[in-house]
């Protein structure tokens, strides 16, 4: 099993910067769909960001690559004031799981990478679902005190619970899964040319 060296840390750091810029663009775009759009934003990113993850897996292919990438990204979110504990835990656990699935060997199949990335993105979704699932009353009260109508808050909470939560997970999983195949389609010829 290959271990990460300092140049891999630098590579993942630069990739994280690119990841963040694209994440902000996609998250902002999906926020126009309201709370449900916010919930599925990791999937919308997954569709685009799958190409980044495919590139990382092809270039590095080392154990801990996704865990480290996620830690850097969550570190950046925290520095920008966006990180909080449940999101950290969900993201890192699923990134570790992704590493177990795909990073133990540099030889990987596309479907395995797609599965690993889809799980990673479902972990990111946990960040938006958990507050609504576990702190629903304070969340509702908070927004009503800021002027939102109770009807709207009930509707927006509804899209993060029960069947909608499952639908969110399913959409995020599917979009991220497709994202890796998209990355494979776009980058395949470049890696074939490099004989990698």
């Amino acid at each position, binding site marked *: 099993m290959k271990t990460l060296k300092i140049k891999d*840390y630098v590579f993942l750091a630069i990739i994280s910067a690119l990841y963040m810029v694209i994440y902000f663009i996609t998250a902002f775009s999906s926020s126009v769909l309201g709370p449900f759009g916010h919930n599925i934003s990791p999937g919308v990113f997954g569709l685009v960001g799958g190409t980044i993850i495919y590139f990382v897996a092809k270039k590095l292919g080392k154990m801990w690559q996704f865990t480290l990438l996620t830690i850097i*990204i969550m570190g950046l979110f925290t520095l920008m*004031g966006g990180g909080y504990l449940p999101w950290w835990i969900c993201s890192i656990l699923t990134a570790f799981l992704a590493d177990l699935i795909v990073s133990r060997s540099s030889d990987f199949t596309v479907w395995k990478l797609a599965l690993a990335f889809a799980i990673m993105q479902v972990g990111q979704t946990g960040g938006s679902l958990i507050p609504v699932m576990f702190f629903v009353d304070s969340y509702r009260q908070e927004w009503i005190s*800021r002027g939102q109508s109770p009807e709207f808050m009930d509707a927006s909470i509804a899209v993060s619970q029960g069947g909608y939560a499952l639908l969110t997970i399913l959409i995020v999983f599917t979009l991220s899964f497709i994202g890796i195949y998209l990355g494979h389609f776009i980058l395949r010829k470049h890696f074939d040319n490099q004989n990698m």
Partner: protein
Amino acid sequence: MNTKINALVLIFINLIIPFSAMFAHNIFVTFFLFLFSAVLLLRFGKIRRFLKYSIAFLALGMIYYLLLHFRIPHTDVFAMSFFILFHFIPLMMIASLLFYDYGPSEILSTLQLLKLNRKFTIALTIALRYIPTFQAEFKIMKSSMAMRGIAFSWKRPLQSFSYFITPQLFRCSLLAEELTAAGITKGIEYHGVRTSIYNIKWKKSDSFWLISFLLGFITIILWGGHL
């Protein structure tokens, strides 16, 4: 004499602010955070940035108020998005200082004080440094594509995306190699304590900023709702 605020103060404040969303049930917390961030920007002499963020803050706040006040049908979702952005402005103001006004070596030396994993702090610092770079790179990429007569087209989204992302990714790989080589030359792999040309010692003025923030923040959380 270096009178720059220690980067740890800004990092700490940006770690604290998200919790305001959990405990703050009054709008005054957001106003306090905005005022404090504005004072910090002015302290750094960033008047244009202060004006830009102030306009954004006022505009987002007003749009949110107007949407809710006039109860325009089907705009609740947008109102909520505007409020989230409104709440996010103070964070962006402080993050902008970390992005643009502290060098990577300065942040790296400061983070060293936290005794975090060294490789992680290096990676975090590089990522922080390169986010603004990529924003500029996107513009370069777009003009390079335009020069070659290739335009972004929604009719061919996959091809457009491919033209856009592929050079960026390979550029990342190249940058990583160059940066690693430069870093190794500067002793990035050295495991001992790094010395720094920056004054990263905790100063009395740093304590002043931090205590002022905490006092103001706690006061507003406890009594802001009664105002």
